[in-house]
């Protein structure tokens, strides 16, 4: 088995006294092509995770490895490969475009810098093909300035860029959260095309569990830098085990008039005040309807609730312990000949 594309080796990040991300061990291989969702609210550490993987932040502990080597210490040639093979789609469909240039700039730059084309003509061909692949008309899109396109079109163009580069891993940081709900489907379909037709693994960062349900194979739920639940996406979302995940799923406003918000479960009072960092205990304690005194001092380990889900909560302490470095296998992030990717 070849070295994984990206690996977090007990990598974590602290900003002063605040733990943005507790150390995680995860590796994403290139033989499977999963879509892994990383879900959480703001402050959960999901953006920190993306920044670490893209090399925009250095970990406070542990390492991030690209094909087995620490990305902070890559020699120039390998660094180029890293940039070529690990790409991203960002959240803000406007800010990703340099307002001085036409939108073609985001496509022509990487084509040129990575030496992917010989001639202008060929570059144009490739760009047009990529546009069509994501449902954009090249004549209506290329040659325009960023403000002339809608958010949905700009974001699809970013996916087209990823298609052009054919990376080995795509990190999509809340790619649809700033787009109208009615336009999200088409951007997400194009991401899924990248995955199913081109075999590109995607790390899908989101706070919207509904889209994660439709798009992802596996999911990690983060709360204040800690993994509270992880496993098969469908299982975790339809049958959440951790109180936070349950709260998240309950709070999704359903367009079904007969399914009221919250499933009848009220929100606890702990939302009134900003929560302070708990002293070594479970970060969710202030908002948890099941909080017990020992939750304040004891951060539970992960428990394997069933073959598809791991949960970090004392409510499940009867279940067998789950080793943190087994996450990659639980989430089917690497080649596993006997398992198939759930479609």
């Amino acid at each position, binding site marked *: 088995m070849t070295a994984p594309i990206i690996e977090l080796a007990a990598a974590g990040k602290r900003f002063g006294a605040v733990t943005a991300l507790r150390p995680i061990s995860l590796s994403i291989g290139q033989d499977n092509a999963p879509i892994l969702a990383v879900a959480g609210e703001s402050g959960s550490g999901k953006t920190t995770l993306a920044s670490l993987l893209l090399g925009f932040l250095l970990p406070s502990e542990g390492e991030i490895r690209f094909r087995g080597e620490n990305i902070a210490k890559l020699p120039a040639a390998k660094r180029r490969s890293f940039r070529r093979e690990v790409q991203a789609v960002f959240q803000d469909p406007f800010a990703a475009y340099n307002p001085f240039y036409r939108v073609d700039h985001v496509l022509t730059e990487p084509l040129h810098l990575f030496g992917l084309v010989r001639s202008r003509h060929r570059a144009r061909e490739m760009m047009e093909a990529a546009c069509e692949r994501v449902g954009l008309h090249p004549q*209506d899109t290329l040659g325009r300035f960023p403000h002339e396109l809608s958010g949905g079109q700009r974001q699809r163009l970013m996916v087209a860029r990823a298609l052009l580069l054919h990376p080995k891993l795509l990190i999509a940081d809340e790619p649809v959260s700033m787009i*109208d709900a*009615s336009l999200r489907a088409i951007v997400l379909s194009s991401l899924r095309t990248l995955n199913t037709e081109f075999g590109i693994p995607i790390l899908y960062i989101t706070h919207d569990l509904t889209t994660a349900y439709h798009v992802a194979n596996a999911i990690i739920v983060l709360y204040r830098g800690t993994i509270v639940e992880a496993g098969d996406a469908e299982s975790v979302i339809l049958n959440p085990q951790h109180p936070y995940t349950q709260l998240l799923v309950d709070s999704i406003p359903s367009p079904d008039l007969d399914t009221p918000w919250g499933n009848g479960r009220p929100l606890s009072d702990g939302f009134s005040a900003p929560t302070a960092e708990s002293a070594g205990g479970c970060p969710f304690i202030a908002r948890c309807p099941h909080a017990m005194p020992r939750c304040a001092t004891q951060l539970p380990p992960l428990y394997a609730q069933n073959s598809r889900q791991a949960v970090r909560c004392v409510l499940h302490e009867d279940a067998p312990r789950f080793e943190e470095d087994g996450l990659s296998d639980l989430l089917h992030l690497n080649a596993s000949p006997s398992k198939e990717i759930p479609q």
Partner: protein
Amino acid sequence: MGLEVRDLIVTYRTPGGAIRAVDSVSFDVAQGERLGLVGESGSGKTTTALALMQMLRAPGRCENGTAVIDGTDLLALPPAQMRGHRLRTISYIPQGAMNSLNPVHTVERQMRSVLLDHGVASPRAELHRRCIAVLAGVGLAADVLRRYPHELSGGMKQRVCVAIGMLLGPKIIIADEPTSALDVISQRLVMETLGREQQRNNAALVLIGHDIGLMAQFVHRLAVMYAGRLVEIGTIREVLTRPRHPYTRALIASIPRLRDRGMLGGIPGVTPSLRQLPPGCAFHHRCAARFERCLHDKPLLDADPGGHHAACHLRDAA
């Protein structure tokens, strides 16, 4: 009673010609009622709200329309009088409101200046008491008054904005995507507090957004906008279960739900630019059910403000 809006038209003068950002929009919102206004970015929802508040900026202009509440037409008021009505009669909680809180003033100071601006000449202690009461209404503790905006989370800031919007007990509240930057839990909190406050004051509420799921959980009636026009209006149940406009139907069908995994629909085609609206129905290029008449004849919404209506030629065939 409540707000009655008739034939609202807003145009923007551009070097390339005038475009109609809001084209003859009419609707009613009764006291105590919640109306959802849903549509994509650029469909005219925010422009409608700004027009009602007389807050349009050049080159936008309100060309036509009336907005009557308690016998007063808000659109006909001179600017000085309108200032008195803002926040007192009609209040607007803008998108990204939490970013418009003054970062160098405490919450209490900002709330107090709103009260003072509107001539509430009470002693300081009385104002303080009032601020605490309103904050409690949105589920925030009294010590939030002493805080600065950066010390609060996004959800809390948004609730402060809701509190400010409700401070003078307005009869109409327009909330423009009040939860767009928030996660679902904060969203639920903010909406629940907004709803509670609205009910307590028996105010009329217009909720602007693009998330139909949120509308389903919150509003009594729903209006759908497309390319500046109101294309459907009715109770939330009617519109969701028996949509009469093809756009509404497509919109509802494309909402992702927690079932039918992997089914991601969308509406084929692109919304026309307001500069280049097709003749006839603005939606006809993308409509599977279009026929000859749709290409030339612009469908109009029924004048009757109650009931369930769609601006579509199919209704005559139905």
